[in-house]
């Protein structure tokens, strides 16, 4: 068992209410002051004005706020902004690079959304799913897309869109790379 180092414990970190954090979003670094209570979702939406990521419940029960952090899809409403310093954060705004990402294109072609509110979360989740390689059957896709609710009922078309994106040569291992490269190029253009 770990030994408690009594000396070090005396130099306890001081609590903070507000933090100056650096968030790396879609390849770009943003320095901002956040409240300790600020969720990553609210920081993205209210502070960085990246409003493509949606709030549907604030409790991790709907998936509308799904983004990708360090290569994994997560719900941004259940994580504090301050916990995500230095991590690679990708939002829906970072996915397209001039041309749409294959998953975005497939969503349009298969009418995989109606009102569009859950769509950014569905797409980010789909990109994560394809990278995870959990797309070997319709059932596997359905199961692993079940963290994203769609009240309009576009589920069937979402499954078709994901299959189509894969069929049209989106290599699972490249799903994320493609997104990350797009971001890098965007960042380069702006610089």
């Amino acid at each position, binding site marked *: 068992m770990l030994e408690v180092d009594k000396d070090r414990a005396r130099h306890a970190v001081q609590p903070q209410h507000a933090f100056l954090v650096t968030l790396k979003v879609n390849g770009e670094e943003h320095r901002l002051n956040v*409240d300790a*209570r*600020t969720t990553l979702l*609210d920081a993205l*939406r*209210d502070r960085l*004005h*990246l*409003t*493509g*990521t*949606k*709030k*549907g*419940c*604030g*409790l991790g*029960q*709907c998936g*509308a706020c799904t983004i990708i952090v360090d290569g994994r899809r997560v719900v941004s409403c259940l994580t504090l902004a301050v916990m995500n310093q230095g991590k690679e954060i990708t*939002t*829906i*705004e970072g*996915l*397209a690079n001039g041309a*749409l990402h294959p998953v*975005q*294109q497939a*969503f*349009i*072609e298969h*009418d995989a*959304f*109606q*009102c*569009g*509110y*859950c*769509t*950014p979360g569905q*797409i980010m989740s789909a990109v994560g799913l394809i990278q995870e390689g959990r797309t070997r059957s*319709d*059932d596997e*896709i*359905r*199961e692993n*897309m*079940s*963290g*994203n*609710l*769609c*009240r*309009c*009922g*576009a*589920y*069937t*078309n*979402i499954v078709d869109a994901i299959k189509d994106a894969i069929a049209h040569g989106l290599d699972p291992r490249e799903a994320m790379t493609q997104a990350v490269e797009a971001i890098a190029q965007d960042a380069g253009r702006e610089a």
Partner: protein
Amino acid sequence: MTDPMPGLTGPRARHGSTLGQPLTRRDGVLKVTGAARYAADNHPPGMLYAVLAVSRVARGRVTFLDVEAARAVPGVVEVMTHANAPRLATDPDEKTNPFAFRLNVLQSDRVRFPNQPIAVVIAETLEAATEGAERLAPRFDEEPARAALDDGEVFTPAVVGAGSPADVAHGEVEAGLGAASHRVEATYDTPAQYHNTMETHAVVAAWDGNRLSLDLPSQALAMTQMRLGQLLGIMPGDIHIRSPFLGGGFGSKAGVSGPQLLGIMAARLLGRPVKLVLSREQAFGPVGHRAPTRQTLRLGADGEGRLTALHHHTRTATSSFDDFYEAASGASHSLYASPAIRTSHDAVRLDTGTPTFMRAPGEAPGSLALECAMDEMAEACGMDPLAFRLANYAEVEPMTGRPFSSKALRECYEQGAARFGWAGRPLAPRQMRDEAGLLVGWGMGTATFPALMFQGQARAVIRADGTGLMETGAHDMGQGAWTALAQVAADGLGLPIDAVEFRAGSSDLPDAGIAGGSAHMATAGMAVHEAAAAAIARLADLATGDERSPLFGAGNAGVVARDGRLVRRDDESRHESYADILARAGVAEIEGRGRAARDPAAGADYAMHAHGAVFAEVKVDPELGQIRATRLVGAFAVGRVINPRLVQSQLYGGMIWGLSFALHEKAVVDRRSGRVMNANLGEYHVPVNADVPPMEAILVEEHDPYVNALGIKGVGEIGITGSAGAIANAVRHATGTRVRSFPIGLADLLA
């Protein structure tokens, strides 16, 4: 009905027209890139955040709010309570029209339902406002809650639904029941349901003097503008509402809600823009829901399996302070032939928020009960459910004797049954199992929804460069209005779709009517169609009246609008471009105005309904009672289809709502406190992706010359009807157990 513009309508294929084409959504790129801007995505300079505090009691008075504690939170700017909220120009309890629901906006300390707003905390940040709201620590003088259908005094409302009579009868129901060889009497319970749009109700409000600018998701821009003008004491024209996209509506965004009005009041109080967004749990109360129902059906049938009588009675609930009655019995008005039909309703008042229109209001629970009762009667008659429905096929609207404007239901039955493979269905229940030992059942239901139409307007412009503009204050909550209306506009203007600028979703455009009743495409579509026709007619006047034009003398009826040119009908070599016509006339642009409304004569002479047939397969675990829908096939006759890709999505969505109605959705109300115990998306179950089976929606061809010139019937709601019943009937067929309380739960199927 006269054709408003011969040569521009009709089923004839026209070069370049996109009507009937499965175009992808024109707002697709915005939606898949996160660029589509919903109300809460707006952030005007100087904006404050408002967070509601809501009541945890169902009835009583607010006796204490720790306003000082809330104000002490750094960043909190103001706390708005009943003590300091701005008074309104019109009492929000005044019923200015039947659809103006009474609003609870801090005009008194009275609490009338759980989750009623009791204060608004406004702060520089969302976090501060949230913490401020938590610090209010409210106390209440609490009165007992009336929470269930048995808790109130029963009365008969004057009208139900959108204004239908509560009790309607045709023929002698009791005599018909008395003479019947088979009788079924059964009672079905459906729960309270909440819309749960993925986007909760939101508003961003900014005042400039007496002018008000709003980002507010709305299914009824003009109505909302009018109501807000009355409440706030300003001119409706001084209110600008932007609502380009709704994150779902389903009926809950048809008017301004209390919380949204509170956001507007807070902005007024503080003189700064304010954003207010409901949390998910706060959306269970002040923004409407579908009321619970208890429906009793009494059916009689003769020895041949023909109905002799049908009585559909609904008990439902409204709030203690307002009136909306789920018109579930209406589903029995027009679907099955019977010499005697009675539909009746009564109600109780409960301490809930006021119920409202929710996708297929009345029809959704009513169809479920009716389709189950029809199956129970088919079984009593020893008949196949489809054969029984065909034996009771209504050739004319049963209660009125009016002919149907069109009705391809027989084709729906045929095509749906063939696709599903219904013919192999064993008559008796509990006969089929799959390889894993699960019980398998097949069920069906008839879908129907009235083909409604409201009033709407549009404005068309043809510009000097030959391009077009179409303006109508239409609403896109996911149906695809941005795309399908643009298709109608392009078709009417005789232009490629990319040559038409289409504007919608804003209150400064012509009133497109409400997006509800599955009538938006018919209403706004016809307004667009008429506006285009008017513009083309004026353009044709310019050309055919000018001897320098190759079209001179052709007369209005003699030209066709096609690909940006008017073409002489009797001589296609003679044509002229819009740009040339306008240039020669020295006109910068011409305008056409269009109005849409149902032709009153056709509306009186014909019964107008869309129809469909849904077939479902379910599998049930015999030990656990776990139910899975495994296959859904629907066939729908919905008149003219402008865009089959979008229509299919609407039908799928409706069918999933039917699945949800039958197996998932239920607000669990605590009988003592009146509170919804599962006011979150983790426990208020809507289907997840893995709950949804492979589905098909067949579009059955149907031409209707009477509903409107475009032949559109509407598709937004019909998918729920039929589907819920089909699944419930499949569960019965799988297990032999008839469950009459919805949603059907795991435990209901364990003997």
